[in-house]
């Protein structure tokens, strides 16, 4: 039994069948990669997990609870955090504030209306946020306004915003896109490392095969809304269907 079970999910946009009977079974504590050509429906699938989209049919169960029909903040409060394909951060806020907000959300729940608490008294939250930013390599940019950062840094910031919540399930939509090789390797290390110490389950969408094969325990290949294969990395590499739909085209 997986921690995340996706069954027969369908999603149509007008005439386009973006997801076609998608099934996914993610084992607790594992890294599950989703690969596939552009427009395959990978991000659409993640959108169905976090409440951005509601599938037309099918079910999405996390930890035995359905994620369909509940609000995005409720989904997050059950332990699901997501890094988006285009960074979703608080651009006008400082880096440290960006990470403190999710830390508050984790500690205080969906809302806590106390206008007379002071941020400066929240040393515990701040320390936690600082440590997380250290982990992703942004320790020297705490007071920078988030909008001023490079694309790669924004991505790492968003990762910190998710990691600070210590989620049960971490969804990563192309976490290394826009990063230089060295940063990519750092990110791989980071993702491996948090996987070991905290047992976080991860679903990673990636185009970079180096990242996929260094991290993934299992890979699902998606093309035109359909899962072609779901298997361990060794079997994916040589799989004829995959070559045809994806690898052959990308020449990896």
């Amino acid at each position: 039994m997986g921690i995340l079970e996706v069954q027969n999910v369908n999603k149509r946009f007008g005439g386009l069948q973006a997801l076609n009977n998608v099934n996914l079974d993610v084992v607790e504590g594992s890294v599950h990669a989703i690969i596939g050509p552009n427009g395959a429906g990978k991000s659409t699938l993640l959108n169905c997990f976090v409440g951005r989209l509601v599938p037309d049919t099918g079910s999405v169960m996390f930890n035995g609870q359905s994620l369909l029909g509940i609000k995005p903040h409720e989904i997050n409060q059950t332990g699901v955090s997501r890094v988006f394909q285009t960074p979703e951060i608080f651009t006008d806020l400082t880096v440290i504030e960006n990470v403190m907000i999710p830390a508050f959300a984790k500690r205080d729940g969906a809302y806590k209306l106390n206008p007379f608490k002071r941020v400066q008294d929240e040393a515990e939250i701040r320390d936690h946020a600082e440590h997380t930013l250290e982990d992703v390599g942004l320790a020297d940019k705490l007071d920078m306004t988030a909008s001023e950062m490079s694309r790669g840094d924004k991505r790492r910031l968003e990762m910190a915003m998710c990691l600070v919540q210590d989620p049960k399930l971490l969804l990563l939509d192309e976490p290394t896109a826009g990063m230089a090789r060295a940063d990519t390797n750092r990110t791989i290390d980071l993702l491996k490392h948090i996987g070991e110490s905290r047992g976080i389950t991860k679903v990673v969408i990636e185009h970079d095969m180096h990242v996929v094969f260094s991290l993934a325990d299992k890979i699902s290949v998606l093309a035109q809304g359909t899962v072609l294969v779901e298997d361990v990395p060794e079997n994916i590499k040589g799989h004829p269907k995959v070559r045809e739909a994806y690898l052959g085209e990308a020449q990896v």
Partner: protein
Amino acid sequence: MLKLGKKDAGLFLFVVIITLLAPFILNPFPESSAFAQFNAGYPDLMQRFVIFGIFAIGFNILFGLTGYLSFGHAAFLGVGSYAAIWMMKLLTMNVIPAIIASVIFAGLFSLVVGYISLRRSGIYFSILTLAFAQMSFAMAYSVLTPITGGETGLQPKVNDPRIFDGALAEGTTPTAGLFGVKMRDSLEWSVGDWLFTFNFGYYFAAIMMLAAFYVSIRIFRSPFGMMLRGVKTNQQRLNYTGLNSKPYTLAAFVISGMYAGLAGGLLVAMDTQVGPERMFWTASGEVVLMAILGGAGTLIGPVLGAGFIKYMENIVSKINDTILHQWFYWLPDGLEDAVVAMIYPFIGKGWHLTLGIMFMAVVIFLPGGLVEGGQRIAGWVRGRFRGKESPTSGKAAGTPAE
């Protein structure tokens, strides 16, 4: 100090001093000088400065922090005023019950309006709030006449029940006060050619404003305030981060509604009358101008904006062509007329034109409002003294995060 950070404490202290010394600061010109008409240190105007300061501070908690642009806040001001006047009619001319009632009723009304309007965001939210305010205005004019006095409005009458006060003699007018001291009581101090007026009502309202300002600083520096800024920058992200933005925005809406109610109550405490025009949409628009002109999202900006607009409204509007001719009498005749003719459209009733032009200039050249202007000047001066420009320092100082 006062559980404020160093910078905030400095700012607060500065505002306290300016507010307390306002009767001096606003009256810099001798009575007999030609500039005396630029003096703003008379009770009526000083009261307006601080009362509309409160209105704008509250509005900024909603608009400046969450980015939700309400176009109907005058409705809460109006409800506050009506509530206050009813307290004066039913209970006492002491302003305490009036002020408390104005805050409570405005708070309740904003809870209803906010709950409904916040179902939408952006322009739809603005339109909903505008619709509510115009509805309130229209109802105060018509069907609610028994409560609002319709077009003529309300004021305390001698024969009102007023159960806490003794009966007033026939022919006297009830005056608002605080335990025996009347709001309109003033001390005058004449020094040479200067006349300084210390009005009780002003100081009462000023203390309310300082309290309101203090609360606003605390809100800005709280995790709650941080979430509100999160709503403004990226509400989606806030939701995916596990936070329900609705209670946050609603709380901000109600708090700002209560500020508006307080301002409405104080207006009545200073001048015991109210009519529906107080809720007209232009009054809602004015507070938007105040916040943006001063600098939305900054602590001090709305107060500056309120002061600026009220000054223009009361001072620039009083300049007429006779005064202009007096100023420019020394020019050759033809030239004098030409200069006066050129300036004339911008003064008197034309003060709206001046305000409009200044507003456009601020929005285009100083998106951060007067506060940004101040920071740029400060940055430029600092740069001069250090011999190098530091363009980012001024900007960083403006982030409320610090």
